[in-house]
Every structure is written in structure tokens, then in C-alpha cells.
């Protein structure tokens, strides 16, 4: 029987649904902050860490986070990678090399993953000072904080 299994595949069976997730108060306030060129985090009253993107609870302390903090628009590069492919719906496609990195905004305990531009990747080093570059007209409101570049 198994020998009869030839190379018949079904035509592609696409599953392409739209979901409209409500973001909740914390991410909405974060995105509103970006429109004013502010990066907002929340401070934990237990460990004192400022978490970003903001969330309602500190996982480590299991405490509700209430204190909003405006973080620096500059920060330090923690780690980075140069992408040669992009991924969409699980599929890889070739891409012009682009750089993304983890940048820890001044005042935050955690880094943000962001696009890095205006720098030769060979010159990037962890600990480098970076500054946020804004794009108020970005269609994707998450990308109003467009990218970071060396400060």
C-alpha cells in the first residue's frame, strides 16, 4: 500500500483569518506614549525593576504594576543580529540584509527588540549608546518608534 503513495499533494490549503485583538489598557497607553515620542514602562514596587513594554503584573514578584515611568529615548545596545531572510506566516523569503537588536532604554530593566539603522553592523558592539528615531506617520503604530541608531 505504501508504495502507492505517490507525489500527490493537495493544492495549498490556505488558512488566512483576521483577528482583531483588543490590546488592553497597558499596551494602549504604551502606544499612545509613542505618539508623543515617549517610551513608557511600569515600575514594580517589589523588585524595583521598570518593565517595558508595560504589563499589568511582575512575573517575578506577582505584584500588580501601577507606577508609570517615562524612559529615556536613548539606551544601550544589548545584542543584535543581521537578518538575511524574513518570515511571514511561517514561510522564509530572502531579504536585503537588515539589522535588528535588543536595546535597553535608559531607566528600564529590560530591552526592546527593535530595528537598527544608520550603522555598519561590523561596528556594532553591545553596550553602545543608541537613540530612538521616530516616524509619527508610520502606518503600523508599533513602528512609530521606527528604529534605533547609534547616538
Amino acid at each position, binding site marked *: 500500500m505504501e508504495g502507492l503513495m505517490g507525489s500527490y499533494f493537495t493544492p495549498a490549503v490556505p488558512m488566512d483569518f483576521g483577528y482583531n485583538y483588543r490590546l488592553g489598557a497597558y499596551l494602549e497607553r504604551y502606544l499612545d506614549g509613542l505618539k508623543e515620542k515617549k517610551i513608557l514602562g511600569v515600575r514594580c514596587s517589589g523588585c524595583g525593576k521598570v518593565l517595558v513594554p508595560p504589563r499589568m503584573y511582575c*512575573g517575578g514578584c506577582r505584584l500588580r504594576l501601577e507606577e508609570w515611568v517615562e524612559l529615556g529615548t536613548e539606551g544601550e545596545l544589548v545584542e543584535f543580529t543581521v537578518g538575511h531572510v524574513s*518570515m511571514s506566516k511561517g514561510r522564509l523569503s530572502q531579504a536585503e540584509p537588515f539589522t535588528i537588536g535588543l536595546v535597553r532604554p535608559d531607566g528600564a530593566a529590560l530591552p526592546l527588540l527593535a530595528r537598527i539603522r544608520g550603522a555598519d553592523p561590523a561596528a556594532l558592539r553591545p553596550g553602545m549608546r543608541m537613540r530612538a528615531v521616530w516616524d509619527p506617520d508610520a502606518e503600523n503604530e508599533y513602528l512609530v518608534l521606527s528604529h534605533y541608531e547609534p547616538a
Partner: protein
Amino acid sequence: MDDKVAIVGIEYSQGDDLGLTRERLCFRTVRGVLDKLGIDRHAIDCFILASNDFLEGRTISNVFEDGPVGAYLKDETKVEMDGINAVVYGALRILEGNYDTAMVIAHSLCGHQVSPYLQVQYSLDPTYDRQLGLLNELSGAALQARAYLRSRGLDEGWLDRAAAAALANGAANDMVTRSLDGADESKVASSSYLYEPLREMHCYPPTDGACAIVLASAGRARELTDRPVWIRGFGSSIDSYYFAGRDLTRSASAADAARRAFAMAGISDPASEIGLAEVSDLFAYQAPLLAASMGLADADEAPRRFAEGGFGKDARLALNPSGGALSAHPVCATGAVRVAEAFRQLRGEAGAVQAGEPRLALAHGQDGLCLQQNTVVVLGI
């Protein structure tokens, strides 16, 4: 844990294209282990399937596999995770006393039929990471690889040698998808970049595969085989959902999972007591990272020793003599295959990849993005 739950039989296959429907693959795998044990499906008290609805392309996909695996009108449940968690679930079901036998069957067909990256991509936070569009399994692994290399003072050439060492092990194993005869690191080094420093051959290959494992209570195990492999301990742990907040240079949750499994197994010095470890190393840097995190090897020494083949089948600790997940990664079945590889090593049935005569072995599985969730099972004879 004393002699309470044993693994009595295994059957698995992996390949870049097994040329089978998922129903036929599941049937063939279950039939294989039942035939080895000389029993039929009525000797199995409960069935536990491990698969992923995203990879199957339909919801509650296990109901379509109940027939092929022989679970019709039987107690059947599903684990939407790596199959090593189904092994733990099976052990728990037997320990609770209601069942004497459990069949675990884990599978996916990511060789050609569906992208293996879907599962992780659609586990990301839809309100943040998926909107930003920068994080995926490969970009996350690249950041983890960089952080690991930097923390241990390694260069990209080390990644080539580590991948070549893993694939050289796979070359001796006729059960894998991708191998590298002669362990030619230049072949690895010339494969194309995906996300730097990771090249295509530093990353797991798309794989078809399935693995069936039969567990039994002590009394039933001795009826089914004269060489049961006992489950000595197990542990699971999960790290933060927020990738950017984790320490990427080690795996805190792998360490925690191993600590729990060792405590249950009565192991105080894993580095000297465990003779064989099979870990789910999806990327070339992960085997030594995991071995160090789980206390099996020194964090500074592990990467260099691994790349030099120092954890080979003749070493005191054999690490992934099968070639690991870098040689074949059938999503959902990979951790179960690690259990199966440990089973055949402990029974001395691993053929060309047999690593001495281990008495105590560790199997590891992971789920989520870059070692987010880890499960460890300790097996012994």
C-alpha cells in the same frame, strides 16, 4: 523513583520526506511497536497523542488520528506540546493507578507538507511581538546564539565546528534526516546566513517523523519485556513569555527541569552519574548550553569539548550520539525521539551509535521560543 513505571517498547522514523499521509505514518508507527511487543491495541489502556493543530491544519486534529493509532473507543487524550511531555503524562497516568499501560504517539510532517516555524510563530504575543514583526524562531535563536558565543568567548567558527560535530554523529545514525559524512565544517561554513551568526546548517532541518512509546506499570512491564527501561524521574519548567527579559546565555528553565528530575531520581551529582544525554538541540549552540545549564558539564569547558567531539560515544558522558535535533527535528516528536534514543542506548540496541553501556540516561525536550519550556526525563536500567 523506584521500579514503578517502565518504557517497554519504542518505534520511530524520521526523514525529510517520508512520503506518507499523517494517518498512515501514525498507523505504521503504532503497528510497529505493537508488533515488537507481540500485542494488539486491546493491551493498551490509554493513548496519549502529541501533535499540534497549527501543523495539522485542522482543529482538535487528534480525533482524526484516533482510528489510525488504535484508540477507537479507548481512553484518549492529547498533549499540544513536544511528545516528551506525553511520556511524563503517561507515567503520571500509570502512577495514579487507573492504567497499567499507556501508548504515547507523537508526530508531525514538517518536511514538505507544512512549515515547521508555524508553531512557534503563532505562539508569540499577538498584541506585541506579532505586531512588531521582528521576532521569530530564527531571529530569536540568532540573538541567543550571539549572546551565548559572547558569554563564552567563542567565534562563529566554533558554531561551524559544533554543527559539524553534531552532524558527524548523525552520519552514523541511519535514523536521521540530515547528516554530514566526514563532518566537513567548511560545508557548514559555506551554507547561507539566515540570521547572523546562524547559517542554514546551524539550524534544524525541516523533518517528517513520528515516535511511539509504550509505558507500563512494574508488574505489566515485566510481562511485556525482560528488559524494561525504568523512568527514574522527570521535571518540567517554563521561562518567561517575554523573550527579551530572559538570560539568553543559559537556560534557567532547563536547569530547573533537570533539578526536579534529578531530585526525583535521587541523583546528587549528575555530571558523574549520567552516562548518556539526548537533548533537543534545535540550533548548533544549544547542546553545550543545555548540558551546562542542566549540570552535566562545565559551562566554560562544554562548548569547546562539544565542538572537538569530546562528548562522543566513547566519552564518559555521551551527548547526543544520535546526532540530536540538528540532524532531525520532527516537531512534537523530537523530545519523544530523545527518550526513544535513550531507551535503545540503555538496552544496548543502538547499533552504530551505541555509546558504551550507560546505566542512567537523560532525555530532554523543549517547546516555545528558544528553550522557553523544558522537560527532562531520567531513565535507568
